[in-house]
């Protein structure tokens, strides 16, 4: 099985993000970057498919030189090959998808796995874009995956429940939390990962379709009001809901 996993480099989940002086980009000073947590589920699923069916796992990212660290992490987890589609410019989801599609188009992948979203820009667009650009099915937010021969059965989280859908390989799967428990890297794999090559591909020229005009930090939530359980506070609650919250 020829497996592609698309990965991205995102700020560590606990980092507090500040907006840069231009008001359009995140200030990267002091920020630690990691492999996007949803991509870990995608990569783990890819590794399990390889363990079951044979074949190889390629991890690819569209990013600048700095993102080689997450490719090393991917190798340490067990990816066979990694590639970076290199660009040092700011770009959007469309640009990313075009470049991933270009990379995938002549390499005959049986399955393409991605995280359901990258936790930095949260666009959630790439799995669908890729399906469209490559002309293959794309199943999003998958929390359980079964593949027999060419038949794919995927369980998706939908509002308030589950949905089971089927498709044929080749297809695209975006991973939801719970799909699996990503493995911890082992020392021999980390050592091996260090000496493996990273394929470099120049990004194709394609115009982004969106531009960021402004970025801002959400204003702080208003402090809650705690009322005691006395009868008087019931009246107060009604007044507050009416006059302050304006919901009744």
């Amino acid at each position, binding site marked *: 099985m020829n497996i592609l996993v698309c990965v991205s480099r995102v700020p560590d989940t*606990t980092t507090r993000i500040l907006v840069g002086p231009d008001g359009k980009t995140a200030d990267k000073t*002091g920020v630690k970057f990691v492999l996007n*947590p949803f991509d*870990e589920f995608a990569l783990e699923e890819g590794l399990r498919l390889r363990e079951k069916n044979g074949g190889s796992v390629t991890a690819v990212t569209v990013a600048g030189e700095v993102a080689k*660290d997450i490719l090393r992490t991917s190798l340490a987890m067990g990816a066979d090959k990694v590639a970076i589609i290199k660009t040092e410019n700011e770009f959007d989801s469309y640009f990313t998808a075009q470049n991933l599609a270009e990379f995938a188009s002549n390499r005959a992948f049986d399955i393409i796995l991605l995280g359901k979203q990258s936790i930095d820009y949260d666009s959630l667009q790439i799995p669908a874009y890729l399906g469209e650009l490559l002309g293959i099915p794309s199943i999003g937010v998958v929390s359980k995956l079964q593949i027999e021969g060419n038949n794919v059965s995927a369980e998706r989280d939908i509002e308030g429940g589950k949905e089971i859908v089927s498709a044929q390989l080749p297809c695209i799967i975006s991973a939801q939390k719970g799909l699996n428990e990503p493995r911890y*890297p082992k*020392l021999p794999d980390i050592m091996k990962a260090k000496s493996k090559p990273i394929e470099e591909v120049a990004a194709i020229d394609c115009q982004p379709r969106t531009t960021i005009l402004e970025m801002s930090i959400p204003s702080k939530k208003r402090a809650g009001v705690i009322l005691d359980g006395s009868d008087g506070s019931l009246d107060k609650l009604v007044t507050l809901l009416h006059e302050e919250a304006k919901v009744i």
Partner: protein
Amino acid sequence: MKIKKNNDEIESYLRDASNLKGSANAVYLPETVAELQKQIKKLYHSDIPFSIYAAGTGLTGSAVAEKGVVISMELLNSFIEFNADKKYLKVQSGVRLEDIQDFLETQNFFYPPNPTEKLSFIGGNIATNASGARTFKYGMSRNFVRYLKLILANGKMLELRRGQNLATDVNLILYADDGSETALVLPSIKMPNCKNASGYYIKPDMDAIDLFIGSEGTLAAVAEIELSVLPMPDNIMAGIIFFNEFNKMLEFIVQSRDFSNERNKIDINLNDKPCARLIEYFDNNSLEFLKTFYSQIPHDAIGAVWFEQEYYYEFENIILVQWYELITKYSDLADGSWFALNETEHRKFREFRHKLPLTINELTSKNIQTKIATDTAVPMENFEKLFYKIHEILSETGINTCVFGHVGNNHLHANFFVINEDERKVALTAYQKIIDLTLELQGTVSAEHGIGKLKKNYLKQMYGDEAIQAMKAIKRALDPKMLINQGNLFD
């Protein structure tokens, strides 16, 4: 100032993580240091006993009031000042440890003593002289306290800056803000030569600030704290190493402890060898608990060690190779062990460690029992004896137990999960055996959780009656009416 008096409002202030239940008439929640001071003065003049409650994560009932009222520190939660050049952070005592670490992270700094329970308040940490995994390299909370603003039982303020108020031999004089003096004659008490959180810190020529750190709120309320902080190391590697043979695991622990103690003295930019900043242990039963959440623990593992190392990037490869060689020497499970070089993985390892006490505490609550867990440490040269014997004592009980802890600091937590009175008796007998053993080995009955209300007998056994009376005399000199945190440390 907020005041709570309804039973259902104050109930949560009458217990801590040990499940001990207390009693009080009201909870006061000062919002400023001035309010705290005024309230304590009032209580003093009315002879009302009061207990200081921080986050209530303590494991010894030390924050649980026996009577009187509770003063909750939760609203004294402001950051006061951060100075990167001088490397300090000044906060009020009700700031959560987690908020301190999060804030410092944005500044690329960290606060080294990192007790596992991040929801605790920094004031609680100082009052218990809490410690964490990194204490192996950096020491306990005490080492990072530069300044304290204290409110004494009579409502007077006492400010102490490290280095500025030392005892002359055994004579220590404290100067309150109104100019009044309290002169103490320090008794001669032999503190154990290991990590310790049992009773007062007392030594000739000591710094006054050290008397209050770890005094479990029995001498004063901590209002403000200035902490030393450090720039974040650039690179950290970590491993959770699984072992399949008990003796070899112990050898690995002792080896890595000893070489790390030596190499931690070297500047990390010059060190190209394995050197842990923390060494934590999990026994077989601990791993069994964790297997419910972590399916990747190797089946044949009988124990595990978690370590972290700070290092200079250039040496990454050669340090990794040496760890690998070392681990393969002591374990057949080197290839199944977990390694981490990035923050996401480090966090997962820390969660793995934290999951254990959480699971244990949940199980204890579910069994409707108070926690039975030892907290003993011994001097380095006696650690191996402690390690062997604790496992032996536990396996003889025939009840559900586990051991884990800060083995770098020669410190182990043995936990007992009892479901009825009979098992409880068996557990308490084994507990006593571990205390006896620890004291034989010149150790301490509590290395980090403190004495509180649940371990007073053990403190007495450790120091003897005379020393306890001497500690009590110190309390009486500072709190003549014996009002603050009654019932902690001694009766």
